Structures are given as C-alpha cells and as structure tokens.
C-alpha cells in the first residue's frame, strides 16, 4: 500500500535516506530518537514537504498526485497539530461532515465519544492530554480510512489510557481487512504489543527492519565478559558494543547461543535494547 523508494532529504544537521514498503493489513512501528527522521518521513508521505529525490507511492500513486477521494482514505494524528482548540467536538463534527460527506460516520463517532466520556460541547482546549489523544484517534478512524499514519499517538499518556487507545485502534483494524498503519512512538512496549513489523531509524537511515515476532523471539542480547568474548562464535553476531561488564552482542540466533553457551547471560530481544546497541548508545 505504501512504497517508499530512496527517499532523500537534506537538512543542515542531518540527511534522510531510506526505503521501505508497507503492505495491506500490516501494522508497522517506526522507532528512533528525536531528530532521527521519523517526522520528516511522515511529512513526506503526507505531501507536507517535497523530498529532494526519491518516490513515495500510496495506493499505487505518487503522493503528490492523490485525488481528494483517495486522500479521504488517509487518517492522521499528530501530537502537536490538530483543529484549533477553540472548537468544540460538535463544531468539529460539522467540519468533518462537510469535508467527508457520507464517509463520516456520525452515529459511530457520537457513540465513541460517549463511551470515552468526551464532552461534545466543550472547547478542546479544556480537554486533558488523554482526552485530546483519544479524540484525535477517534476522528482519524471516523471516515473509513484504510491507511493510518499515527505520530506519537500515546505520548504523554499514562498506561491505562494508552491501553485504551491501542485497544480502539486494534478494534478498528479488526473490522475490515487490508487496512494498514504506520505508527511512531517512543514507548516501545506499545509497539511490541501492537506492531507486526518494526523499523528502527537513526540519523536519517534505517538500521533495522524486522518482524516484531523475530525481534522478540529470535533476537537476543548476549552479555559477555571480557574473558568469554574471544571464544564466542562471531558468525551470528550482528553488532557489538562495549559495556562495563565486557561486551553486549546482538544476535538474531538466540537459540544457537542458548544451546551452545548455556552459561552465557542472554536477554530477550526488545526494541529498546536493540536500538541502544545498534546506535552504540552509551552505557548508563
């Protein structure tokens, strides 16, 4: 559904250069530090900025050539951009109806707002962060969008609200096949529970693209002392970083090391650990 080929954009402080594809019925998580390029990628997909070179195709067409009908199939949330907060939900509903006409499902939307205790006649600026996040998501899901782009939809929220929001999203995906989502977040546990694929990005380049399943179940971090290190089989080591205790090694074949080095300390793969290792994060 989404195809990004050799997307390049140069800024004074960093350079973006990446390619990836997202198929229908896939949920992809984009992880990376602030300034690693996530927002730039998102804005390129949404035609909010023109890349220096490369192609982005959504629904089979270059994003700059999507018709209005095709753009109705896109649902977006940003953490810091929305309708003016002077509007109430009732007013936003009017705008949505006029923008999406029959595709905007008013009854479902009303019911959702009711279930989530979102007051329909108060200005959005009076909502808590959690309520605003819920509103943004519910709105993105209110017009039969097939492609969802969610930029930090759960940032700043406590764990209960995050679960709620992810639940809403999962229910939406359950309703119809062939929808797809790209979601960025700093909260790796959210992505590990939700996403089918994880893309790690650092300094404008993609450093890992992997099934979440593989990441959690086959990747491992070997904690190797300086003495053990020389005798360690290097064939399956993807990356190594120095640590206080010796070395941390990333492998995609956790079971190999579990079987052959039973005394070795091995951690399950997780987004945070893998990201830290691959970006040569400093030992705390």
């Amino acid at each position, binding site marked *: 559904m989404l195809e990004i080929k050799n997307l390049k954009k140069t800024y004074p402080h960093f350079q973006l250069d990446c390619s990836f594809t997202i198929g229908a019925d896939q*949920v992809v998580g984009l992880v990376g530090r602030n300034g690693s390029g996530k927002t730039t990628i998102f804005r390129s997909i949404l035609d909010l900025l023109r890349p220096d070179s490369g192609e982005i195709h959504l629904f089979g067409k270059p994003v700059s050539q999507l018709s209005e009908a095709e753009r109705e199939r896109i649902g977006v949330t940003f953490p810091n951009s929305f309708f003016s907060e002077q509007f109430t939900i009732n007013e936003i509903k009017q705008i949505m109806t006029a923008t999406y006409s029959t595709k905007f499902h008013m009854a479902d939307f009303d019911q959702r707002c009711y279930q989530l205790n979102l007051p329909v006649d108060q200005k959005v600026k009076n909502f808590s962060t959690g309520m605003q996040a819920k509103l943004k998501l519910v709105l993105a899901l209110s017009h039969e969008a097939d492609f969802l782009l969610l930029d930090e939809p759960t940032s700043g929220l406590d764990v209960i609200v995050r679960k709620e929001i992810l639940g809403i999203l999962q229910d939406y995906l359950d309703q119809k096949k062939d929808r797809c989502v790209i979601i960025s977040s700093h909260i790796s546990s959210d992505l590990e529970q939700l996403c089918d694929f994880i893309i790690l990005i650092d300094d404008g380049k993609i450093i890992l693209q992997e099934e979440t*399943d593989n990441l959690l179940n086959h990747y491992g971090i070997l904690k190797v002392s300086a003495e053990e290190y020389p005798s360690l089989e290097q064939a399956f080591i993807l990356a190594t970083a120095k640590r206080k205790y010796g070395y941390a090694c990333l492998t995609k074949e956790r079971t190999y090391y579990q079987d052959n080095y039973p005394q070795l300390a091995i951690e399950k793969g997780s987004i945070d650990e893998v990201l830290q290792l691959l970006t040569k994060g400093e030992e705390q």
Partner: protein
Amino acid sequence: MEEVDTLNIIIQHSSMVPIYEQIIDQFRGQIIQKKLKANDPLPSVRSLAKELSVSALTVKKAYDALEQSGFIVTVHGKGSFVAMINAEIEKEHHQKEIQIELETLIKKAKHYGISNSDLLELVHLLLEG
C-alpha cells in the same frame, strides 16, 4: 455465532519460548483435552492479538501452523474453527509428549552414569510388572 469467551490462552512474555509456539501449544492442549470441541470458533486474529498483547502477525503465524498440523480449519471470510480431531493426531500428540519426557529421563540417566543397557533392563522390568 458466539465467541469462545472462556478461552484460557495464557502466554508468558518473559519466557524464552517464542510466543507463537506458546500459542500453538496452548491451543493444541485445549483441543486435545477437549476443552475446545470440533467446530468451535476461534477468536479472530486481531482480537486474540489484542487480548494477548502481541502482534497480529504472531497470532497469524500460530493459526497457520495449527492449520498446517490439522488442528484448525480456516474458512475464508468466516474465520477459524477447531477441526475434527481424529485419533491419529491425538495419538501423535500423546506420543510427542511421551517422547519429550523420555528424552528428559534419558538425559538424567546419563547424568547419573547409568548405562544404556541398564536403563533398557529397567524399562523391560517395569513393563512386565
């Protein structure tokens, strides 16, 4: 069509065992023990994924594997259902269980230094008795 509300699929995120394997084992166990009967509907991939807090792809892999080994059938557009489990598959599963326990036993015997012939003699004795 009712969902199986009392589905007791429990997985451990912290375990070293891959999650989709855990899911497969849990379903197989429930089906063998007749807790899930033939034609019972399985939860949709996404709803189970939500419940277990894992990605849909993981659940899909498990369902695919279960279908491969004949435990479930997937009807396009309707979902997945428990298949008719014939005696063959049950027997296979039971045999696998025994095999695993035997493997553990054999390892233990080796560890204590008991020879293969001594072990076989012990087994014959017990089988006759």
